[in-house]
């Protein structure tokens, strides 16, 4: 087995609150892992621990077999980890093109270090996610769905080996969701391993090779999508959260 | 030992005044998220109001204090209403620069109007003092200390026990919270800044009684107020009081044991250190 990512006993505490509680899982190379769970379950926190936006309280994260949980975020980016932000973080004053060019300039080792080449690269990725018509606009002029696409293009331009997508489909209409699903599948076909956080069940079912369910920071289920979604605990967690 | 005791008493008395100086700055910073670089200049104006009422009209400086507060309140209200309200939603750096511009305007207008000469407010009882367990304590300093404490207490009462006060505190959490209390945010901001300025005016009036004044004292006083705000954090007026006393005592001890020219090294050094180690203030809660 060739695991690109291994998470062992990962724990994150915010003051009193256990946001992630001894979570263990692995992601095989070139697979898509769906990460689901009710709001506040700890999904975003988990992504932040892997990408280096947050440091874990305990436990370890291994990327291609090497521990990375003590590395600064930018070093993980160089190794080949890219993420999107649920609360989008564009560079507001830069053009859409330059937003993506930053990814190409700084991303994983092996991406370009020349500004002109980075902009060319950025153009290609913007085309890939369907944002070509917006390249010259300032990022803060984009609407919600376009910002989601921009987040995706920025991450892709980093040429990652592992892509962490935090709710890139939230707020999109069904047609747009189909488009994004196609894009994600194409990305996987290029050999990139992916973790997807999503609430749209149909999307997550059609994308994921495996599913992992978080609830109150704990892993309550993991496995093939159909099996996991039949699991009583999972259903209870979701219904419980809906009733609240 | 005798000297140390005297120094400590001086430090505490000065610290009370320091706390009052910082109180208005902390209020405005905590509630409006405006770092008011003109705060010291407002203190300076308060001192001049007191000076002119004392020399021109022969008023007792402590009687002139309410006048200074009222005038400064009006000035502060107008500044917020017609200048700072226009930049309150801009990046913090913009309002910082605007308050610096105000500081420059106020300082040099003062220089033009009042001249750059040093002034003193010397009431007849300035020299009166008493002995406190062996330390010589001037009455004016005790009086100034008492007024500073009383105003700190009054602000606390106001913020905790009146509707407007609660609206101001809610604004610290959320800029438009004033609406929930049926208050127009524009007016509430102006009111808050006005109160901050009035406190600066009071501090200035007291400062004029215990020290010399000229138009340029503002910048240094802003710096001291910052140090206290950072030591005490932005949350409680009680903490500001502790911060003020702490700074007063530390400065007094520095002057005694290291040398009077080192007080600024120590007070600003503490400011920087606290910022680096605990940006939310020594007494504030952790981030």
């Amino acid at each position, binding site marked *: 087995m060739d695991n690109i990512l291994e998470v062992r006993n990962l724990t994150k505490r915010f003051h009193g609150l256990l946001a992630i509680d001894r979570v263990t899982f692995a992601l095989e190379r070139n697979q898509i892992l769906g990460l689901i769970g009710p709001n506040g379950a700890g999904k975003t926190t988990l992504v932040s621990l892997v990408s280096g936006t947050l440091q874990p309280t305990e436990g370890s994260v291994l990327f291609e077999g090497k521990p990375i949980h003590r590395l600064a975020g930018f070093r993980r980016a160089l190794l080949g980890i890219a993420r999107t932000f649920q609360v989008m973080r564009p560079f507001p004053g830069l053009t859409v093109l330059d937003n993506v060019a930053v990814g190409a300039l700084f991303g994983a080792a092996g991406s370009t270090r020349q500004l002109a080449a980075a902009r060319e690269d950025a153009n290609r990725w913007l085309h890939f996610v369907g944002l070509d018509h917006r390249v010259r606009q300032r990022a803060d002029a984009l609407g919600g769905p376009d910002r989601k696409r921009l987040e995706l293009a920025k991450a892709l331009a980093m040429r990652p080996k592992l892509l962490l997508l935090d709710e890139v489909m939230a707020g999109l209409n069904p047609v747009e969701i189909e488009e994004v699903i196609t894009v994600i599948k194409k990305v996987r076909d290029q050999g990139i391993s992916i973790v997807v956080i999503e609430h749209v069940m149909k999307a997550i079912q059609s994308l994921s090779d495996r599913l992992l369910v978080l609830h109150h920071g704990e892993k309550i289920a993991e496995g093939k999508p159909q099996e996991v979604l039949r699991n009583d605990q999972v259903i209870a967690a979701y219904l419980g959260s809906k009733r609240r | 030992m005798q000297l140390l005791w005297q120094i400590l008493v001086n430090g505490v008395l000065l610290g009370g005044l320091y706390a009052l100086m910082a109180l208005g700055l902390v209020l405005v910073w905590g509630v409006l998220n405006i770092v008011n670089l003109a705060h010291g200049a407002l203190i300076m104006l308060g001192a001049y109001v007191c000076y002119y009422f004392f020399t021109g009209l022969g008023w007792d400086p402590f009687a002139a204090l309410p006048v200074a507060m009222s005038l400064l309140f009006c000035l502060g209200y107008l500044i917020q209403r017609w200048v700072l309200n226009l930049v309150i939603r801009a990046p913090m750096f913009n309002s910082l620069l605007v308050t610096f511009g105000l500081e420059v305007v106020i300082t040099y207008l003062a220089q033009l109007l009042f001249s750059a000469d040093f002034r003193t407010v010397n009431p007849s009882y300035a020299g009166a003092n008493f002995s406190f367990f062996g330390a010589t304590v001037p009455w004016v300093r005790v009086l100034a200390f008492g007024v500073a404490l009383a105003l700190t207490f009054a602000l606390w009462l106001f913020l905790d026990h009146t509707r407007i006060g609660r609206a101001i505190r809610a604004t610290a959490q959320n800029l438009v919270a004033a609406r929930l209390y049926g208050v127009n945010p524009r007016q509430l901001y102006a009111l808050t800044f006005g109160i901050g300025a009035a406190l600066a005016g009071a501090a200035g009036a007291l400062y004029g009684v215990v020290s010399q004044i000229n138009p340029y004292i503002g910048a240094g006083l802003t710096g001291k107020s910052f140090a206290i705000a950072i030591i005490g954090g932005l949350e409680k007026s009680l903490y500001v009081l502790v911060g003020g006393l702490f700074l007063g005592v530390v400065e007094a001890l520095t002057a005694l044991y290291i040398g009077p020219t080192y007080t*600024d090294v120590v007070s600003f050094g503490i400011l920087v250190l606290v910022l680096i180690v605990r940006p939310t203030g020594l007494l504030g809660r952790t981030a």
Partner: protein
Amino acid sequence: MKPALKFIFAALVVGGFATVPSWGSAVLVQFGINALILATLAQSWNIIGGYTGYPSFGNSVFYGLGGYGVAIALVQYQLPSAVGLILGVVLAVLFAFLLGLPVLRLRGHYFAIATLGLTEVMTAIVSNLDIAGRNVGLILPLAKGDTLFLELSLALLVVTTLAVAWISRSRFGFGLIAIRENEVAAAVMGVNTTLYKILAFALCAVFSALAGGIHAYWITYLDPGSAFDVSLNVRMIIMAVFGGPGTIFGPALGAFALAAISEILASKITSLASIFFGVVIVVAIIFMPRGVADLAQNFRRFGWRYFQENIKAHRV
């Protein structure tokens, strides 16, 4: 304006300054030196404040250390002034590395105030150093004529501006801009934010220290109050912000404009010039917070509405 046109214009300005000694009065030459030094300071502040988004109030420390480098080398050790300039730069860069590390972790108000505090600390420390002449200061040996200083400060401004031009189109500069626009996102995308911020701070230090060194050598007198003057720091910020922070020519332009206007006013009443300066700050931040450069770009499109829109965007 097209970039090519801008560079031609810049070349004309440089040429104009370079020839001032041959046609201008002594007063004009002196004004020129002052304006060039201020423009250099505004331009180097632009690197940390304009491009990186860290509003430093500590740049006057670099300026002061540059001045003291020259003064100490000349007065205490009778070394050549070039050695003094280098000494000043080394001191300033050391300061940038040692204190940049902890201070650049702070954001917003806290960064601004910490750097302000550092300036005060440095003033107070230097006032107690024998080697720096304590609070009396140092008197430097009289140097050669003003022409030399005009050429020196002009060369320094050109080099600083070239550095900024390079930053604006390099990978390094893109990293700085990314930090300014969103530091968390920049780090996740692979920018070594700590290193980049410190390098930007150190680059500021080099140019500001050189400006301070040249100025001290020219004025032949230095004391802690004038060397670490906080209001000088604010002046450079205002000039940069007025001209257009994060642009190549804006800060220098802003410096020339504001220096000229306050020079004219100061010839009437000194405090009037300062009051004018204060009013300009307030009015400019309210009506054109992104500086003249942005105004020039957008005024044609929006007309007078440009000012209204700026106010509407930020008032309560």
